[in-house]
C-alpha cells in the first residue's frame, strides 16, 4: 500500500540555521512527490514537486528537496530558516490507482526560535 512517513512530529530550529525535514514514501511505481506547507488556518501551498529528471528540485521560498530512490526518501531542506517559515510541512506522494489522489504524511510542525 502507498504511504508517506514523516518521522519528526515537530522540529525547532534557530532563525538563520539550516533545516532538513525528513520524508520516506512507499509506492511501487515511479512516484510523483510533493512538499506542501500549511500556515495556521490556511490551506496547503505547494512548495515543490518531483516528477522525473534531476533529483534535486528547487521550490519557492528558498526550499529544495532531494529525491533518493535507493532510500525512498524525499527530504526537504533550506539553508537558512526565517521566522516566517514556522508552519506545518507535509510531504505527499501522488498515486494513480485508476484515479489520481495524493497521499499525505502526518506532517512536521516547524518552530523557529529567535
Amino acid at each position: 500500500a502507498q504511504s508517506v512517513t514523516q518521522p519528526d512530529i515537530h522540529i525547532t530550529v534557530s532563525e538563520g540555521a539550516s533545516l532538513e525535514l525528513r520524508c520516506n514514501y512507499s509506492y511501487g511505481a515511479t512516484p510523483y512527490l510533493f512538499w506542501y506547507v500549511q500556515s495556521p488556518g490556511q490551506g496547503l501551498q505547494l512548495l515543490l514537486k518531483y516528477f522525473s529528471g534531476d533529483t534535486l528540485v528547487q521550490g519557492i521560498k528558498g526550499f529544495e528537496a532531494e529525491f533518493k530512490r535507493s532510500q525512498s526518501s524525499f527530504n526537504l531542506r533550506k539553508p537558512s530558516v526565517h521566522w516566517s517559515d514556522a508552519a506545518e510541512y507535509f510531504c505527499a506522494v501522488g498515486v494513480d490507482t485508476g484515479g489520481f489522489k495524493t497521499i499525505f504524511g502526518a506532517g512536521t510542525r516547524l518552530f523557529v526560535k529567535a
Partner: protein
Amino acid sequence: EPEVTQTPSHQVTQMGQEVILRCVPISNHLYFYWYRQILGQKVEFLVSFYNNEISEKSEIFDDQFSVERPDGSNFTLKIRSTKLEDSAMYFCASSSGGEQPQHFGDGTRLSIL
C-alpha cells in the same frame, strides 16, 4: 495567480442535518478532489472527480457523501446526514492533469454540534 476558492469558510450544523460545501476550482483544471483534515491529524483523501464522474474514492467516502459539478464552475461536496465525527476541515483541490500538483483552497471548517 488563479486560486481555488471555498465557501463558506466555517459551517456549523446540527448532527443529522445535510450540509453542502462549495468549491470553485481553477478555471482550466479538469481534475477535482476533496480532502479532509480532522483537527491535529493528517490530510486524508476523500474523492477524485474527472469527466463528470468519480474516478477514485476512499473508504471514508461512504453513502452519506456525494459530489457534484452542477455547472461549469462549481464543485460541491454534500454530506447527507452529518455525524459528530464529520467535524473537520474540508479542502477542495484541482489540477490540470491527474499527475499534476493539486492546488488547494483554504478549506471549510465544518463543526457538527
